[in-house]
């Protein structure tokens, strides 16, 4: 516990405790306490990352399977049979129920396990103590619990793939009554129960993590680390954690009511239903209530996924352009605005659900408002590049990729937010294209950028640069190759979640679009093998990291290249300036770490 106490003390106090730390290091830790039930933020970060990588590979493989079905419906693939066996992939043809199951679990894993748990879990854990100058999280124990809840929840989600009726298959949004009634589809039997149990545990994990992040950022900043000196990564993680803490409990209640409806005969979401040859007793509930509760989480969730990625790239773009991030305060302001607005826009998912149209109008207004801070962020990134001295690390490439996808996917949001225009493309592939580009690609690019950039802090080694380049360019080209053509499917009116588009004539002329999408998806998926190789190879055999390989200003680069409890061997660093003094006139180097005191008459921050 010594390290936990030491974290929130002042400067001198910390020096005193530092001896205790050295003591700790001399102890040989057991395998279990070091690698398994670790309370060290760095180890927990690695655990989150590796779990997320495994989950991402599974979810990506699923997408390849259903993309093959969509491009070549009814064709026989040995691959599908090998992956799914004779029950779900008889003769290599995907079963329609399994198609829905794959779509559902692909979405669930990607949104929650990879881009929420994986992204926030990895980088909030790694960077919050490092960048604010703390010895560890406020509560190492809660942090450990957070990971293990996440782990159990991942295991349950994966277990549901192997049960007789198949996993949940009502779409990742699990709208009842489809998800509530076992008669409605096989996936709504045990698979749905496991989904709900898994997600409930996931929410527990997310809340434990989120509370810890907030408390740590507010209480454990080192001397001189004012809120206005925090790197934008930390701001992003703080706002993300607040969003999570405020919205995930609503999803939990939403899931609990669904559990009640499923197993205890309540009628929160059910009314007037005749299914399986008999009328049900449930009267008075409404599926629209579920949709409100779900999207009250669901929309902030989009920003829970996106903000950490934006925070990570803010840091990386500034470091690698060798320039301060443009409009530091405006960036914080926009993130706060996005965070606030994200709570009052959920209804734009529900324009056509039978919700009162006037309510829809209100949501049109708030949703389009959110485009303003988003635009500010995008333009600020671009201005940061202007007159920079860009160093193309793989992380920087992915960050530029993020800005591009954020813009490309963002503009179609303006269409979808407009209830009038949404009528035509609601629930079509236009929506699929929109959210995969703006949320999926942006967030995953941010995650890749973070992995390449902070690999030296995660595993004390460097990733291979050339493989990183190859990985980026293949991924970037294929990503647009997969998701851009989907807009045109949407314009032709193709609905989402159709097992095949060739069952009736209307979409027969779209075969070539579907083929291009699938071919790009397969190449893009294979490109990830390069990343996986680079990741695991570098973990053990990469070049040894140096202390500050990217000449960065933030505090994590003042720690030695070693895994030590308490992060800094001596006293905690003291912060004297903001994190973005790159290429500051009158300075010897093109970076000035936050620990360097201000010279006489030197202004802090970017002003004046």
């Amino acid at each position, binding site marked *: 516990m010594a390290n936990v106490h030491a974290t929130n003390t002042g400067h001198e106090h910390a020096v005193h405790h530092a001896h205790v730390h050295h003591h700790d290091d001399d102890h040989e830790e057991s395998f279990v306490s070091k690698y398994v039930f670790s309370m060290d933020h760095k180890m927990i970060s690695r655990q989150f990352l590796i779990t997320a990588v495994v989950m991402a590979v599974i979810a990506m493989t699923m997408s390849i399977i259903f993309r093959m079905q969509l491009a070549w419906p009814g064709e026989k693939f040995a691959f599908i049979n090998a992956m799914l066996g004779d029950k779900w992939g008889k003769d290599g043809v995907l079963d329609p129920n399994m198609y*829905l199951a794959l779509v559902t679990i692909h979405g669930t894993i990607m949104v929650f396990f990879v881009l929420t748990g994986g992204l926030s879990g990895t980088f909030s854990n790694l960077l919050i103590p490092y960048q604010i100058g703390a010895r560890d999280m406020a509560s190492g124990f809660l942090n450990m619990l957070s990971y293990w809840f996440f782990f159990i929840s991942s295991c349950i989600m994966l277990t549901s793939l192997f049960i007789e009726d198949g996993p949940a298959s009502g779409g990742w949004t699990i709208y009842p009554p489809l998800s509530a009634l076992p008669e409605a589809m096989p996936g709504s039997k045990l698979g749905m129960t496991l989904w709900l149990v898994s997600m409930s545990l996931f929410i527990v994990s997310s809340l434990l993590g989120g509370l810890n992040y907030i408390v740590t950022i507010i209480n454990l900043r080192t001397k001189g680390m004012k809120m206005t000196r925090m790197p934008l990564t930390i701001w992003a993680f703080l706002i993300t954690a607040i969003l999570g803490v405020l919205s995930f409990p609503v999803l939990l209640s939403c899931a609990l009511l669904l559990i009640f409806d499923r197993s205890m005969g309540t009628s929160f979401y059910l009314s007037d239903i005749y299914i399986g040859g008999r009328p049900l007793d449930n009267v*008075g509930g409404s599926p629209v209530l579920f949709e409100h509760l779900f999207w009250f989480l669901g929309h902030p969730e989009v920003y829970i996924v996106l903000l950490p990625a934006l925070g990570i790239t803010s840091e990386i773009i500034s470091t690698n352009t060798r320039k301060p991030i443009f409009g530091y305060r405006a960036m914080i302001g926009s993130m706060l605005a996005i965070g606030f607005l994200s709570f009052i826009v959920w209804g734009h998912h529900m324009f*056509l659900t039978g919700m009162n149209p006037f309510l829809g109008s209100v949501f*049109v207004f708030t949703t389009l408002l959110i485009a303003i801070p988003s635009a500010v962020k995008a333009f600020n990134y671009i201005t940061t590049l202007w007159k920079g001295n860009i*160093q193309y690390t793989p992380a920087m490439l992915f960050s*530029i990729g993020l800005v591009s996808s954020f813009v490309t996917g963002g503009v179609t949001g303006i269409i979808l937010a407009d209830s009038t225009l949404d009528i035509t493309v609601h629930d079509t592939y236009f929506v699929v294209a929109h959210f995969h580009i703006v949320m999926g690609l942006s967030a995953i690019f941010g995650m890749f950028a973070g992995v390449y950039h902070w690999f030296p802090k995660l595993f004390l080694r460097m990733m291979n640069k050339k493989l990183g380049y190859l990985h980026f360019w293949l991924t970037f080209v294929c990503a647009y190759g997969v998701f851009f053509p989907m807009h045109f499917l949407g314009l032709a009116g193709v609905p989402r979640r159709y097992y095949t588009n060739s069952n009736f004539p209307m979409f027969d002329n779209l075969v070539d679009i579907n083929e291009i999408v699938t071919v790009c998806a397969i190449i893009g998926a294979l490109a990830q093998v390069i990343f996986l190789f680079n990741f695991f190879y570098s973990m053990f055999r990469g070049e040894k990291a140096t202390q500050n390989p990217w000449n960065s200003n933030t505090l994590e680069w003042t720690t030695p290249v070693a895994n030590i409890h308490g992060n800094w061997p001596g006293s905690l660093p003291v912060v004297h300036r903001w994190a973005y003094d790159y290429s500051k006139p009158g300075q010897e180097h093109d970076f000035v770490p936050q620990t360097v005191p201000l010279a006489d008459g030197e202004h802090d921050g970017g002003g004046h």
Partner: protein
Amino acid sequence: MKLLILIGLVLLIIAVHQLMRVIELSRELKKTREWQVSEKDNRFNGKAMLAFMFLFFSFFFWQVNRWNDKSLPDAASEHGVKVDALWDANIYLITFVFLVTNAVLFYFAYKYSGKKDSKATFFAHNNKLEMIWTIVPAVALAFIIIFGLKYWNEITDHAQEKDKVVIELYAKQFDWTARYPGKDGKLGSTDYRQIDGSNAVGLDTLDETGFDDILIKNEFHIPVNREIEFKMRSRDVIHSAFMPHFRAQMNCVPGMVTTFKFKPIKTTAEMRKDPYVIQLMDGINKQRAKDGKEAVEFDYLLLCNKICGASHYNMQMNIIVDTPADYEAWLSKQKAIKTKTVASAEVK
């Protein structure tokens, strides 16, 4: 065979491993660090960014050129024409923003790729610039919101016209039933508990207004130039009535009645003569010939657009838009359900 593949894989891994080892050793001799970014790397990636921009934009225009005429035909409903106009304005706007912003991004990425002796400009903020890109989007969005909401209010308003046609769309796993009110112009009330083999949509067997109702499967007719008010219901799970050609969509939710209205402006026959629709159908029939399927003619379609189970992809119904005379003639031929329901009511 599997063994061979396995051995091949193992050999491949060993080969890659050895290769990496050689590279590592040679690097140690040279004392350079692989991960450090050289000016050459910057130049390469900067140029690649620019090249990507051209590739990306070419891909974009190629897609527009190739696939734009696979989009839905012009709206076949009165409000749909307005929706399309608003759509076009929005699409031009966002395409402009998309192209300009990406162009600037990739150009900067190329132009300012790092050089050894150059130094970045310390430019941390500028209130005027930030004001510009707060206010310009705000003004543009204000226009979008105003027009969007004006049309939205019109579209979602109650059906006003006196000669409106009321039709119920009843959804269940996995088909649609259209119910017409019959001669009395009133849809009979319903009760889901009375659903059985002979009463598929759950009519209240004691409500006489329902006796003359007409149930239609597979293909239903509507008259052109009259307001059609749809009332949607669902028997089991959420479905969504999506009529893309009319720019119409509304969820069917168990336990409630949702509505959507529109006024069709082109009959099915007129649509079949439309040059755009003809080229659309040519494309479809060409592909069908390739797949060994028979050629088809254009039809309006009602699709399910909310995941509803295994056959979600296979839940549609044809819509025929008739001239008023044809519509009346068709309607008069349809049988009311009266006799059946009375009989079953008496049995009870």
